[in-house]
């Protein structure tokens, strides 16, 4: 309901647009009205993949072109109607997305963007080689409706408007569900997203399939409107650039962005072309380019966000975000968070056997074995570079061991991806914190909750619960980027807790905290331990460790030095030697 109400401005816009469309009879202006909607839809398609996941695609023309050629060739060779071919183009675009995404998502950042560039350009030459330099859609004057060849230009604009509404609704749906949250989490910190239980590859593939499908349909419609398809006009660089331009101009990662961008840029360039083109040929491109450059410099994230920030500063009451948690089970109770059953306490839940991992010639982890019992707090200590964090990275699947076994409830988990391990009950926090910096605390923790349940209400309840347990409920609506280090540590803890982990890996949770803050975090960890959550913690501060851990595993040079209860471990001469060096041993002993 709330989603529909927030779309009210959009529907008003669509209504006004339809009205203008009906009033305009000049076919030149009518075509412009159609094209604004086509490029807005194409921008939305780009936004679904690149805006939300942050994986910039320079090659969206691939999907657009596939769609355009689907209608052109389908009508030419098979005599099919565009009414059928546009959905088919959507399916083909989606499939192309999967096909392209599967290998290309192995790449990150700039490499991804560059690889995407190659697809449409390769296709361009293939279609030229196939002899489709110029395909003209056959005229079907006698059966205009069935072949979408309306004499009245306005019909195209109305169809385009309906398509845009469909895509806006799809995008809005995406924004408000787990799907959108997963994509935003991937954009901000892919590793953390994966560790919080998001199957990043699967969500990215869904995003590119959806994006490809939209682009395919838009391309198909474009061919119907213009009746002529050439490889350069649908696979060319300028097509890919168009999607980027309208979205970057209007605003990235918002439904409004492409609509605003296309609504301003397309008429602007046409008007410049019409008004100035005959005076100084080409001047429209210069002015257009300068306008875009200025805007990008002034509003790097697009017009929408700039205006929104401005309004927020001036009239904050106009944009008031509702509180995220309203009446969700705030009274946290202990049994909620822990999956541990008292009856099974003391059973071995995680066992590591002969785990090894080298980086080049360095044996970072060398035949490490230890076991974690249900309900205990195991401290892993050791000097810098002893391989502690590497052990965690092996345990939660960031790294694959060279040899050895990781048994979770007796099942070997080696080779599983981080999100699978998270689903199996391994939650973790990071030494160098990995928040989703631009999302609210509540949303950060929601990401973790979705690891356990696909249901929105249930996830919200879990998240509220986890946040309450670390004592951050008052900050739930704040953006993670504004938090202090201590609050971030607690938020990461809540994010891991929300998925009800069976075993919680805490990597130097106290690092960088002042004394009072550290005490607060220690308090939370002790409370969790008292509730029976199994915890493995890496920490340098011995004072804190002695109070937290039931048992110590000491690592040195990647190997287990000692394994035992705190009191005996800290007196062990080998431990003192590893920490302080040989010459201090006598001092320590005395």
């Amino acid at each position, binding site marked *: 309901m709330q989603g529909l109400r927030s779309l009210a401005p959009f529907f008003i816009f669509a209504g006004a647009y339809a009205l203008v469309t009906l009033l305009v009879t000049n076919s030149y202006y009518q075509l412009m009205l159609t094209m604004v909607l086509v490029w807005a839809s194409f921008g939305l398609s780009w936004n679904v993949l690149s805006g939300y996941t942050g994986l910039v695609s320079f090659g969206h023309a691939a999907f657009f072109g596939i769609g355009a050629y689907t209608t052109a060739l389908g009508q030419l060779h098979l005599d099919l109607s565009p009414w059928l071919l546009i959905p088919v183009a959507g399916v083909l675009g989606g499939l192309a997305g999967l096909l392209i995404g599967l290998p290309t998502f192995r790449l990150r950042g700039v490499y991804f963007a560059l690889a995407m560039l190659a697809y449409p*350009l390769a296709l361009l030459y293939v279609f030229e080689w196939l002899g489709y330099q110029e395909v003209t859609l056959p005229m079907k004057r006698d059966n205009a409706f069935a072949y979408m060849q309306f004499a009245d230009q306005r019909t195209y604009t109305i169809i385009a408007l309906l398509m845009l509404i469909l895509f806006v609704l799809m995008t809005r749906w995406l924004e408000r569900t787990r799907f959108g949250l997963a994509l935003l989490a991937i954009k901000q910190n892919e*590793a953390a997203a994966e560790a919080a239980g998001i199957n990043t590859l699967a969500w990215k593939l869904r995003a590119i399939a959806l994006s490809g499908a939209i682009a395919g349909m838009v391309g198909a419609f474009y061919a119907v409107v213009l009746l002529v398809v050439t490889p350069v006009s649908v696979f060319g660089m300028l097509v890919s650039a168009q999607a980027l331009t309208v979205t970057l101009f209007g605003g990235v990662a918002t439904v409004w962005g492409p609509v605003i961008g296309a609504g301003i840029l397309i008429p602007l360039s046409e008007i410049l072309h019409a008004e100035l083109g005959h005076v100084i040929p080409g001047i429209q491109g210069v002015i257009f380019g300068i306008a875009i450059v200025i805007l990008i410099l002034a509003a790097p994230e697009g017009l929408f966000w700039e205006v929104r920030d401005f309004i927020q500063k001036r009239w904050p009451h106009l944009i008031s975000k509702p509180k995220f948690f309203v009446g969700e089970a705030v009274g946290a109770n202990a049994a909620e968070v822990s999956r541990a059953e008292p009856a099974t306490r003391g059973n071995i839940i995680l066992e590591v056997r002969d785990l090894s991992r080298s980086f080049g010639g360095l044996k970072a982890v060398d035949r490490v074995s230890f076991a974690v019992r249900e309900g205990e707090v195991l401290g892993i200590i050791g000097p810098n570079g002893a391989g502690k964090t590497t052990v965690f990275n092996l345990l939660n699947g960031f790294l694959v061991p060279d040899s050895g076994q990781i048994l979770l409830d007796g099942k070997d988990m080696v080779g599983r991806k981080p999100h699978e391990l998270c689903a199996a009950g391994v939650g973790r926090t990071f030494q160098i914190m990995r928040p989703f910096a631009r999302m609210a605390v509540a949303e950060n923790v929601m990401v973790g909750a979705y690891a356990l349940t696909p249901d929105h209400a249930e996830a919200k309840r879990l998240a509220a619960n986890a946040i309450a347990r670390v004592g951050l409920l008052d900050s739930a609506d704040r953006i993670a980027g504004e938090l202090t280090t201590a609050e971030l540590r607690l938020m990461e803890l809540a994010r891991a807790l929300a998925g009800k982990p069976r075993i919680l890996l805490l990597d130097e949770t106290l690092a960088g905290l002042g004394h009072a803050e550290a005490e607060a975090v220690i308090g939370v960890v002790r409370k969790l331990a008292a509730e029976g959550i199994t915890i493995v913690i890496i920490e340098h501060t011995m004072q804190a460790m002695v109070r937290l851990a039931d048992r110590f595993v000491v690592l040195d040079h990647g190997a287990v030095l000692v394994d035992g209860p705190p009191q005996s471990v800290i007196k062990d001469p080998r431990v003192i030697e590893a920490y302080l060096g040989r010459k201090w041993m006598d001092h320590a002993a005395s």
Partner: protein
Amino acid sequence: MWGDYLSVFVNKSRTISALLSIGAIIVLTILMNRSRLGKALRAAADNPEAATYMGIDVDVAHRIAFALGVSITAIAGGLLAVNYPFHPYVGLEYVIIMYAGVVLGGLGSIIGPFWGGMTIGLVQQLSTLVLPTQLQNTAIFVVFLLIIFLRPQGFFGRVAERT
């Protein structure tokens, strides 16, 4: 050159262009590897924050790098114009091939793009032996994709991702 049976036609203006390009590459390599400026630019690219602590004005470094890049491109354009027809939209075709060459060679490497460009040229020319001429550029992109998948950092690039 070597008698009647083995003769190579060498176009004078192309030879001069090639030699000038090689000269530019050598000058650039020396500049980037040896000079204080080159070291500053590479430091700024490698780790902007650390470079700032070492007294490098990273903003200025970026501007100099951009100017340097653009000026080399202009040299290339000038040399090209001597041998090939050109028009206002000519840039795009070369930009794409250039891109492929740079990625192949390795972003951030000085000599990498040289070999990347050579590879692209070879692939382009040799592909005509097995493929129709129209697919020349498709061949480039296929090879480009293959190499990106096998070695995303390029021939000479280093793995930059740190955790």
